[in-house]
């Protein structure tokens, strides 16, 4: 958690100001009972009304000073905390944006989102609390003790004795309560999980007529949570009464001890009154400090999660001295490439070698887990290889600027991802400077123009977040158009036609073929029908190349290829 304090550096001056103002506020507030005592001792006792007025005026002044300081402190701490939050968020987002694809995959998307938004807010809120209370509360407590000591030492000792007692009571209650709270969070999660599963699986539950079973499951979780919540709340309800009782007991003790001392002539009445005020202030600040400590563990957990992200250094970076490719276009070479995901037991790819030139269509086929998408991902350098090299246009991809490399590639992922905006902005994501004609042309080739024209707004039709207002097939076609509009040297289609029916898929492939004659095309697929006509088919099995060649040859020579083909159509069709 302390690691994050480095983000406070630019706010040093404001933080100092906040602390100074908080100090001023505490002192001013603490002075009020003192002045009150003075009113009693110098005004009431001697019946001097003018003194009463004078001290009253001073009190008013002090109150104003305290308030002004408090408001000022509030102002600056609001700015500091919000600024801190803003800076941390910026840093996290920037860091994550530059993560390589596999670094990103180490965290789940949902968790990264929470870390950027929720966790930052948690830390921010605790920061505010700390800034306003970390000075004020102890200040009030210590200042109160000092001032009451200055009034009368014996009486002050009563107060000093009470504080640790109170502290211990709170500590004991909290120690029991905090783990119970954490447990409650677990049970809340469990309840939500059951509810969520009930919603997603509603068809299956009803299909198997298991409503009763689900209700029982839910009831168990519900009961469990309720029991825990009652226990926790009952425990915590001890706090307030305990605090009030201690405060009141303290007041009683002060009066008793005070009376003794006053009677012995060792103390003034005003001192007793002032001590009563201090007692309340002190005990209240002890209470606040405890409250703050309760929020700390949660914020510390958030801070840890944030640091976990910030500690990760992007591992796919630009070289110090980037090399530019020459006149060669569209040449992709894999030279004995081996790649292993960090922490994995076995390499995802081993010893993969091939050369693909401009104008050729290279297909990659294999079952899931065979390494197809990994191979496709190495081309735009989503990850760095462990052995061998990936060369584009004769240059190792690690020696190029990432920007330059990716500008050569049009990539279409397995699951189409669109962004909120319009159809046109989504297609232009591939190339901002694309003209309307180029956008339309890309859409036509991608077999998307049809459905776009059917929409009343056409290319200006809105696309909602995540593209949820479009069907899977429509999204895929737009993703393809987005890549096409780039006029890239190299196209990588990672199983991008899976949501399309056979007819559209066939039309698409025909259109693509004529459109991308000059480019190097990579198609990753599981369908034999899609890869059949490629110039070169790479068959992967368990990360290794088990066959490279054309369809006709592979059917005869490659067992894995034949196996795949057989499972997708009856034997006679394919043989």
């Amino acid at each position, binding site marked *: 958690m302390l690691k994050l304090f480095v983000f406070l550096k630019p706010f040093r001056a404001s933080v100092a100001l906040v602390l100074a103002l908080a100090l001023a506020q505490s002192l001013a507030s603490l002075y009020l009972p003192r002045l009150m005592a003075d009113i009693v001792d110098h005004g009431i006792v001697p019946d001097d009304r003018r003194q009463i007025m004078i001290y009253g005026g001073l009190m008013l002044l002090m109150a104003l000073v305290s*308030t002004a300081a408090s408001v000022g402190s509030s*102002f600056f701490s609001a700015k500091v905390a919000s600024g801190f939050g803003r800076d941390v968020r910026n840093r996290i987002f920037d860091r994550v944006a530059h993560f390589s694809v596999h670094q990103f995959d180490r965290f789940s998307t949902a968790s990264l989102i929470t870390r950027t938004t929720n966790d930052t807010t948690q830390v921010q809120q605790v920061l505010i609390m700390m800034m306003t209370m970390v000075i004020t509360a102890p200040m009030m407590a210590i200042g109160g003790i000092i001032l009451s000591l200055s009034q009368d030492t014996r009486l002050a000792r009563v107060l000093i004795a009470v504080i640790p007692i109170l502290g211990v009571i709170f500590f004991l209650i909290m120690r029991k309560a905090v783990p119970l709270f954490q447990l409650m969070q677990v049970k809340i999660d469990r309840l*939500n999980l059951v509810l969520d599963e009930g919603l997603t699986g509603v068809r*299956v539950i009803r299909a198997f007529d298991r409503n009763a079973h689900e209700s029982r499951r839910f009831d168990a979780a519900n009961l469990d949570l309720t029991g825990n919540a009652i226990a926790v709340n009952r425990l915590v309800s001890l706090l307030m009464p305990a605090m009030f009782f201690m405060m009141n007991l303290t007041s009683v003790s002060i*009066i008793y001890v005070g009376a003794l001392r006053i009677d012995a002539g060792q103390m003034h009445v005003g001192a007793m009154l002032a001590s009563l005020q201090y007692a309340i202030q002190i005990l209240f600040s002890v209470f606040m400090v405890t409250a703050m400590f309760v929020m700390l563990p949660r914020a510390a957990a958030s801070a840890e999660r944030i640091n976990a992200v910030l500690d990760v250094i992007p591992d796919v970076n630009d070289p110090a001295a980037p090399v530019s490719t020459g006149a060669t276009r569209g040449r992709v070479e894999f030279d004995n490439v081996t790649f292993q995901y960090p922490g994995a037991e076995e390499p995802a790819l081993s010893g993969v070698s091939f050369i693909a030139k401009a104008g050729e269509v290279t297909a990659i086929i294999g*079952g899931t887990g065979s390494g197809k998408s990994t191979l496709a991902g190495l081309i735009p350098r989503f990850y760095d290889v462990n052995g061998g090299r990936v060369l584009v246009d004769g240059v190792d991809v690690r020696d190029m600027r990432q920007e330059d490399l990716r500008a050569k590639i049009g990539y279409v992922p397995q699951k189409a991802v669109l962004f909120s905006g319009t159809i046109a902005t989504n297609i232009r994501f591939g190339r901002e400077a694309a003209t309307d004609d180029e956008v339309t042309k890309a859409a036509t080739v991608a077999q998307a123009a049809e459905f776009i024209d059917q929409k009343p707004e056409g290319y200006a039709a809105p696309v909602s977040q995540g593209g949820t207002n479009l069907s899977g097939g429509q999204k895929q076609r737009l993703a393809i158009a987005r890549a096409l509009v780039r006029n890239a040297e190299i196209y990588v289609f990672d199983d991008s036609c899976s949501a399309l029916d056979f007819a559209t898929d066939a039309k698409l492939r025909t259109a693509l073929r004529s459109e991308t004659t000059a480019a190097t095309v990579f198609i990753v697929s599981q369908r034999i029908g899609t890869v059949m006509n490629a110039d070169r088919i790479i068959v992967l099995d368990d990360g290794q190349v088990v066959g490279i060649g054309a369809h006709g040859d592979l059917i005869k020579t490659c067992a894995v290829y034949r196996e795949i083909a057989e499972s997708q159509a009856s034997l006679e069709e394919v043989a």
Partner: protein
Amino acid sequence: MSSERDAIKRQAPPTSIFGRGPMGGFGMPVQKAKDFKGTLRRLMGYLRPHQTKLQIVVGAGVIATVFSVVGPKLLGKATTKVFEGYLARQAGAATGIDFGYVGNILTWLVVLYVVSSSFLYLQQYLMSGIAQKTVYALRRDVEAKFSKMPLKFFDSRTHGEILSRAVNDLDNISSTLQQNLTQLISSVLSVIGIIVMMLTISWIMTLVVLASLPLSVTIVATIAKRSQAYFIRQQKALGEMNGHVAEMYSGHAIVTAFGHEERSVGKFKELNDRYYEGAWRAQFATGMIFPIMMFVGNLSYVAVAVIGGYLVTIRSIALGDVQAFIQYSRQFSMPITQLSSMANTIQLTIASAERVFELLDEAEEPADPIPASTVPTPRGEVRIDHMSFSYKPDTPLIEDMSIDVQPGQMVAIVGHTGAGKTTLVNLLMRFYDINAGAIRVDGVDIREMTRGGLRKIFGMVLQDTWLFSGTIRDNIAYGREDATEDEIVRAAKAAHADHFVRTLPENYNTIINEEATNLSQGQKQLLTIARAFVADPAILILDEATSSVDTRTEVLIQKAMAQLMHGRTTFVIAHRLSTIRNADLILMMEQGRIVEKGTHEELLAASGKYSDLYRSQFSKLVEASL
């Protein structure tokens, strides 16, 4: 799935041990409830079973408050006695403070405080039970409601929306019942009690203290109104920023592939700045309230000190009274603050309760008929008689469909993606009710059966594998209530799943985690087939689509499906050529309608849409191999 749950968590206010505190409800723009009184009454209805306990709570609250309100006055009496003794000493008297009297009062005070604190604790103790049990009942009612809702309800809403009501809104209600109800009682009583006590001392001073009330109310109201605009701005900017984060993170690979990192970061910084501008202002506005309330409190303090001091000098009141008054004025400000923030909180809570009640008032499925017809030993004959159905009344979907399926036959449903193949599934399983005509299983209209009874006749294996977080054994056993271990293993073997289960370290006890990521897609599919085996239905509904499954597992799946289909009437959403060709009946669907039906040979001969599809898909394979 869990991303939705995380989203729900993000929206919920942070729960704190000390509750939302006195400042909790300030500033946030309030969603007004549409029918405040009605919803309130209904919510109170849920409290009715706890009536007696509530009465005790109120009673305890009254006692606690009364005793704590009387305290300062007594303390003041003690102080006055001390003061008198002190003055007497000063004047040279022999005896000073009357310790007998003082001691007496102090003892009484201690007793008072013990009683007050105990009753305060009792109040909270009972309230915990009441509040949590009430929310328990609400949660249970919501869940029970879910099981009676038609599928239409779930299909037309995002899970996030539904969960938000079931979780966030109930959370709100729970917190409010837990804390604010007792706070309300004690605050109101405190205010009344304190005013009464103050009046018994000095009406002048009471007026002085009361004068601060309208002052603080106006200040808070002004600040709240001014800050509303900032809060709205903040929330809006937050929504946009979060939306951007969600999008860019979900599409991280694309952003990287297209080199959009810098642009994305730039946009984020812009949104972040906008949020900052709204956020610090809103924060400051909220932060200002406390100091200003303190100032008003201090103002009273000063006024009481000065005026009180003056009154003591003219012997109008005693010194102890001044001290008591100071205590009262301090004690006064807290309940006032609490009451004003409570107004906001209560609004929010009633709005939440309203949303929950809306849920509970949703139309349910028509109940199962009593007495219901049953089909004790289903043979698997399905007849659809002139059936019509549409999801929306003005967009006709299936019209006048009639098919006749004999036991053991296989019906293949074919069509493009999005053609509406799942509609038929929805209707057969009676997830949706047809508009006209009838569907009969073994001669019995499905509407005359109980839904449970009907669905037991069918078995479903869909592309979307749904497994819950439990053991593999439990998931397979889900197919039938009292499946024996033997039956489970046999089913797993038949589904070719037994082998891979045994390669797992915990075998059948392996727990499938939340998002079921510890199993591959193919393995999940095999488990759902095993589940269907356990159910041993007479009629099967199968979706053959097996994208993103590795070849070897796919072969297993096909074998398993073939075995499952053996001897059963099957409706298959077909993707494989061999399945379609061997079907006894092919239903060709397009945009939800059945456009052609017949056997493979018949449809080819008819040279219609099926013929087109067949030739475009499968003929290529034939060509290439020549």
